[in-house]
């Protein structure tokens, strides 16, 4: 009798372990208990990276030509199944019209091109490694892109004292899940002296999906296995969308030994582009 029970239990455990980690956050790794840090929290330390085309277009999309002919296939838009749960992004009608305008003008409107800080959630799915360094009081999330950095406040729940590009993030643990509530996002550059170089909204991807300073993001992050995170972000901006909407994707651990972030200070590579018309020659 006992042997049968043990065998049945072993079989049950085996089944759970062999379930593939699905793309949606809902089911995959639901039963996984992450190792703990010494202060007792689920351990999110390490290097993580998204492996999808969300940074091109959050919504499902076909392949398409890129904006620069000479970059050919290297900068064409690859196809993607999309990461938005439940269909297209719920734009207000006038905001959808603006999205199409911004998309058509992406070379000028997309902050990524000028190495501007990408904001949240975009930094989480850009094609660069993200390092999480976790202490009891703060969790740092550092992207290789433009040395962008998020500081998640884990022991306070204050309102943002000022607006920033990467937002003001308050985090708390709900069991295995890190829940982060972020507000206080700048919606545009100041553009006082260079109106033509200003950006007017913040892109969430290269397809012109955008938000304003009305953005509010709630993220849920948890370990679903030794080398996977489940990442969900609920995005709300009454200036743009009719209701909150949610994206979901796995994040994969960068498992190569001695992994570290490289220094990608892209400001240097774009300064001639940004200041070009006021310069004599290039800075290179």
């Amino acid at each position, binding site marked *: 009798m006992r042997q049968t029970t043990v065998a049945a239990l072993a079989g049950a455990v085996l089944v759970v372990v062999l379930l593939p980690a699905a793309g949606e956050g809902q089911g995959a790794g639901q039963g996984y208990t992450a190792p703990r840090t010494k202060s007792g929290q689920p351990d999110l330390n390490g290097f993580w990276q998204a492996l999808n085309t969300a940074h091109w277009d959050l919504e499902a999309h076909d392949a398409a030509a890129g904006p620069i002919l000479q970059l050919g296939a290297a900068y064409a838009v690859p196809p993607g199944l999309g990461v938005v749960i439940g269909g297209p992004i719920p734009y207000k009608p006038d905001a959808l019209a603006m999205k199409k305008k911004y998309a058509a003008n992406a070379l000028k409107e997309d902050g990524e091109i000028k190495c501007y800080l990408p904001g949240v959630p975009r930094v989480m799915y850009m094609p660069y490694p993200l390092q999480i360094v976790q202490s009891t009081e703060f969790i740092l999330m550092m992207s290789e892109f433009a040395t962008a950095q998020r500081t998640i406040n884990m022991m306070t729940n204050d*309102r*943002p*004292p*000022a*607006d*920033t590009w990467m937002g003001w993030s308050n985090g708390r643990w709900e069991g295995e899940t890190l829940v982060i509530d972020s507000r206080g996002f*700048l919606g545009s550059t*100041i553009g*006082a*002296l260079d109106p033509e170089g200003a950006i007017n909204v913040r892109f969430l991807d290269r397809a012109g999906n955008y938000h304003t300073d009305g953005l509010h993001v709630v993220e849920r992050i948890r370990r679903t296995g030794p080398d996977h995170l489940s990442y969900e972000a609920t995005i709300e901006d009454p200036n743009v969308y009719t209701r909150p909407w949610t994206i979901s994707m796995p994040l994969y651990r960068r498992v190569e030994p001695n992994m570290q972030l490289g220094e990608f200070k892209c400001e240097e590579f774009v300064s001639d582009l940004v200041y070009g018309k006021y310069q004599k020659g290039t800075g290179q």
Partner: protein
Amino acid sequence: MQAQFCAVIAATAVMLGTATITAHHAWNTVFSEDKPLVLKGTVAKVELVNPHGWIWIDVKNPDGTVTKWGIEGGPPNGLIRNGITKDSLKIGEELTVRGYGSRDGSNLVAGVQYERADGKAFFLANEGAEATAKARGNLK
């Protein structure tokens, strides 16, 4: 030309050699001492950003139209550590700014002094170097 960017130089510190190899930008590249201004308007937007915070005020012109002026200030971290936030100045409140206008004539001002409707100075009133020194230097 030894233009210093936002420098606070202690009088007793000796200036040591030529300090830089590239031209700084100093505020006098943007703003001019020949253009002192007193600007009165209402607060339209407050952006407490690094390296320079900006306050935008709506200024009524004699013909009744309204022009937005940008007042460039200092870094916000010291303000925020002392309890000032982006909401400390209310949208629509009256503000008088004394400072210097831009060299190229655009509606931007280097803000030196900010005065609210009640006559009180905004930002951290500098309590005076002596009081600060006594408080700081005599404590062990």
